[in-house]
């Protein structure tokens, strides 16, 4: 039975989640790179929007949510959206058209490969990027999405909780980001020459658009315009705010001044961590999850990254990978049936077994994403070559990959 209120909220939410990729992510990452690479960086988000939109309607949705094969992947039975129409699919969302559920999910499939781009910014060949995200979405995202959210998926059957994509979106992309930046190697001059963000106002605009879009990401994941959507949206906002405050205070204490970029980064870390929990936890719990995300991600980005020396250029792993793991595990502690009867109670509400299930989901997602990403990179490297040559890297990717430049010197 289609409900007009639910349908309009998910229509809006879908558009909000689209906004997260381009302009949100495009501006967030675009401002962080050097001026010679801003267009190529924004292009990566924009291109993901175009390419995965087509992938999804052709076969991505069917692989992710279609009729189950061995609890591992969907079949191609819904190829080209065959049979996905106006009638609701009660397994996924009983009050909105099935086609709208597919559309909402499309926007998640688009942003996920976009998140990875932060790790290999400023040095990946565009053709290799295009091939990489198409293959990655098909053999990494689609299966994990099926395990966690698809009917028959094995993690869903085990009772793993992931409200809006902590494992599916953030851990998968964050871990893949780590593999990518280690595989591609550091940018030329990394650690020797400073590589400051070329336009922080763009980054702040991007972060704020991400925050705004996240209301659709998490609030829309209730798949209805109901109390759960409201609760998820407020948890989301609370988690983001708390993590941003935490990050800024840590900087204040350890570096001497709170920074705008620190606030923006903290907010995104909080948003990531609250994502899997947002529909299962109370508002006070979301404060604590935000606090934990701020602390752990700050430590990962400012201490561990520098110690280990990998060039996760825009902190895709440090924020999305680590933040996603924090959120997925804490969901196992803070989830309560009082908030969402369809969920479960966590450790703090008398059910310690949920932590184990969550940890299993996290571990499997890490292992699968890491191994598959490595294989994809290896194959793409052999066929196309993943990294631009040194000369192109020094001249910048805007001019060498796209024959455009963002800024002129005169005029």
């Amino acid at each position: 039975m289609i409900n007009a209120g639910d349908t309009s909220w998910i229509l809006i939410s879908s558009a909000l989640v689209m906004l997260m990729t381009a302009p949100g992510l495009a501006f967030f990452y675009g401002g962080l790179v050097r001026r010679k690479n801003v267009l190529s960086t924004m292009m990566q988000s924009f291109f993901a929007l175009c390419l995965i939109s087509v992938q999804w309607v052709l076969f991505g949705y069917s692989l992710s949510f279609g009729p189950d094969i061995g609890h591992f992947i969907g079949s191609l039975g819904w190829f080209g959206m065959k049979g996905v129409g106006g009638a609701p699919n009660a397994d996924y969302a009983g009050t909105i058209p099935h086609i709208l559920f597919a559309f909402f999910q499309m926007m998640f499939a688009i942003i996920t490969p976009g998140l990875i781009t932060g790790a290999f910014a400023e040095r990946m060949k565009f053709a290799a990027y295009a091939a990489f995200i198409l293959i990655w979405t098909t053999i990494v995202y689609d299966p994990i999405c099926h395990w966690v959210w698809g009917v028959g998926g094995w993690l869903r059957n085990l009772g793993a909780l992931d409200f809006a994509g902590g494992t599916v979106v953030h851990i998968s992309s964050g871990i893949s980001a780590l593999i990518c930046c280690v595989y591609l190697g550091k940018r030329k001059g990394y650690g020797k020459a400073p590589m400051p963000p070329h336009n922080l106002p763009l980054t702040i605009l991007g972060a704020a658009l991400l925050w705004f879009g996240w209301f659709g990401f998490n609030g829309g994941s209730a798949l209805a315009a109901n109390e759960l959507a409201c609760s998820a949206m407020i948890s989301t906002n609370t988690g983001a705010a708390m993590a941003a405050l935490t990050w800024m205070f840590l900087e204040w204490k350890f570096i001497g001044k709170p920074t705008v970029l620190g606030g923006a980064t903290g907010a995104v870390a909080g948003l990531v961590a609250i994502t899997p929990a947002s529909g299962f936890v109370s508002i006070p719990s979301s404060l604590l999850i935000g606090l934990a995300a701020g602390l752990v991600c700050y430590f990962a980005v400012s201490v561990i990254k520098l110690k280990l020396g990998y060039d996760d250029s825009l902190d895709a792993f440090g924020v999305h990978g680590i933040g996603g793991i924090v959120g997925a595990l804490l969901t196992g502690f803070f989830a309560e049936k009082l908030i969402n009867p369809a969920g479960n109670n966590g450790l703090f509400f008398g059910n310690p077994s949920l932590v184990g299930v969550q940890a299993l989901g996290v571990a499997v997602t890490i292992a699968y994403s890491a191994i598959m990403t490595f294989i994809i990179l290896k194959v793409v490297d052999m066929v196309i070559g993943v990294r631009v040559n040194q000369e192109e890297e020094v001249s910048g990717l805007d001019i060498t990959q796209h024959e455009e430049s963002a800024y002129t010197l005169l005029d």
Partner: protein
Amino acid sequence: MKLITAIIQPEALEDVLEALDEEKIHLKTVSNVLGCGRQKGHTEVYRGRKEVGNLLKKVRLDIAVNDNFADATIKAITKAARTGNIGDGKIFVVDLEACVRIRTGETGPTAIG
């Protein structure tokens, strides 16, 4: 005293700065400039239309040195900025009449280093 002005490829800047540091030449001014030499312009494409730019992005270094440092400076820049391709740039050297350090009012060779 000499004023050495070098116009180099932007991508050579890092190596040139490193080479100058090795020669203990630390004081310099660096600016983004546009210039036109014998190198062909680069193309950019906007909505399918190719535009050939005649003026290319270059980096300019201005370095004031005492006479005994002039050769080392020129050699360091030449070595670090040379690829052998057209467009590597040029170095101009002129006699420097005066030099004043604003903070102290010192003049001449002591004001340079």
